C-alpha cells in the first residue's frame, strides 16, 4: 500500500505542475494588478483638450464619484470602446473625464467631433507624463475614483457593456452611498 502511494507521488507532482500551467493558460497576462488601487489618484494639472486655455485637475472632482478614462485617437481598442462609453455617458450616472494620452491635440478633437464626445471634458496629456503617473501601459484604461479622490478600481482594456453592468455600476452605486 505504501509502495503504491509512493509510486503515485511523482504523478501527483506532475499533475500539480500541469494544473498550475493550465490555470496560467487561462489568465490574461496583460491584466496586471495596479498598485494604485486603494491609493489617492495622483495629482496633476493639465490643459483641457478642447479648451487649451482652461485647466483640469482631479482636485476639482472632490466629493464626487467619477471615471477617468485614458484614451487616444491612435488607439484601436478605444474605437471599440467609444460607442459603449457614449451610451454609458447618456445615462448620466457618473461624470466621465477623459485623459487624452500621447495624442495630437487636433487628432483628439477630430475624433470626438467625428464619433461623438462621451466626456464631460478631456485633459490633454501630450507627452504622456500623467499617464506614467497613473501607471498607464495599455490604452484604453479606466479608473473609478471615489469622493475622497481614492482610486477604487482600474480597468485595463476596453470597457464593455458586461464590465459596466457587472463591475462599474455596482461599484459606483456602493461608492455613491458611502
Amino acid at each position, binding site marked *: 500500500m505504501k509502495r503504491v502511494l*509512493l*509510486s503515485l*507521488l*511523482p*504523478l501527483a*507532482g*506532475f499533475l500539480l*505542475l500541469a494544473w498550475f500551467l493550465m490555470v496560467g493558460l487561462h489568465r490574461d*497576462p*496583460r491584466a*496586471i*494588478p*495596479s*498598485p*494604485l488601487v486603494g491609493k489617492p489618484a495622483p495629482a496633476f494639472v493639465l490643459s483641457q483638450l478642447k479648451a487649451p486655455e482652461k485647466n483640469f485637475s482631479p482636485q476639482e472632482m472632490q466629493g464626487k464619484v467619477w471615471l477617468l478614462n485614458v484614451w487616444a485617437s491612435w488607439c484601436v481598442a478605444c474605437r471599440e470602446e467609444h460607442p459603449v462609453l457614449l451610451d454609458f455617458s447618456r445615462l448620466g450616472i457618473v461624470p466621465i473625464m477623459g485623459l487624452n494620452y*500621447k495624442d495630437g491635440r487636433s487628432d483628439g478633437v477630430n475624433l470626438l467631433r467625428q464619433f461623438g464626445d462621451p466626456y464631460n471634458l478631456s485633459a490633454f496629456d501630450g*507627452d*504622456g507624463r500623467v499617464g*506614467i*503617473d*497613473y*501607471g*498607464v*501601459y*495599455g490604452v484604453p484604461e479606466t479608473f473609478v475614483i471615489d469622493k475622497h479622490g481614492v482610486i477604487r478600481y482600474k480597468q485595463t482594456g476596453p470597457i464593455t457593456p458586461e464590465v459596466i453592468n457587472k463591475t462599474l455600476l455596482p461599484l459606483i452605486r456602493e461608492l455613491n452611498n458611502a
Partner: protein
Amino acid sequence: MLRNAIRTGLLCAMLCAGLCAGLATIPASADVAQPVARDPQLEARVTALTQELRCLVCQNQTIADSHADLAIDLKNQVREKLAQGQSEKEITDYMVQRYGDFVLYRPPMKSTTWLLWIGPFLILFCGIAVLARMIANRRVAVDAMPEQDMQHAAALLAEVPEKKETP
C-alpha cells in the same frame, strides 16, 4: 518492471520541470542597441537600470531592449531622474509605485513570492530524495536474494566451463 520504468520516467519529467522553472528565473541578457550617449557614464547607468525593468507593453522584454513607445518614455524618465541625482533605488521605487512588482525583472523576496524563488529547488530536492530512496531500495533488493537462489545461481555458473569443453 514496467511500473519501475514509468516511475523513473515521471521522476525525470519532474526533475526537468524543476530545472526549467529554475532556469526561467534567470533573465537572459540580450544584445542591447547602444544608445547615442552624451554622457557615457550616465548612459551606462541608464542601461544597467533599465535592464532590470520590465516593459509592460511587450512583457518579455526589458525597458532597455524594447522600442515600444512607453519603454522609450520610461527610459527617458530614468535618464532624467538619474541626471537629477536620484538613486537607482529611488527610481525603482518610483516604477513599482506605478506599475507594481511586475515591473521588476527580479521579483522581491516576499511572503507571496517565496514559493516562486525556492519552489524549483524544492522540487529538485524532492526529486533527489525520491531518487536516492529508490536506489537504496534497489541495492537492498539485490542483497536480499534468497540463499536457495544464490546456490542455484552458483551451480549454474559452475556448469558453464564444462559445457564449453564439449562442442
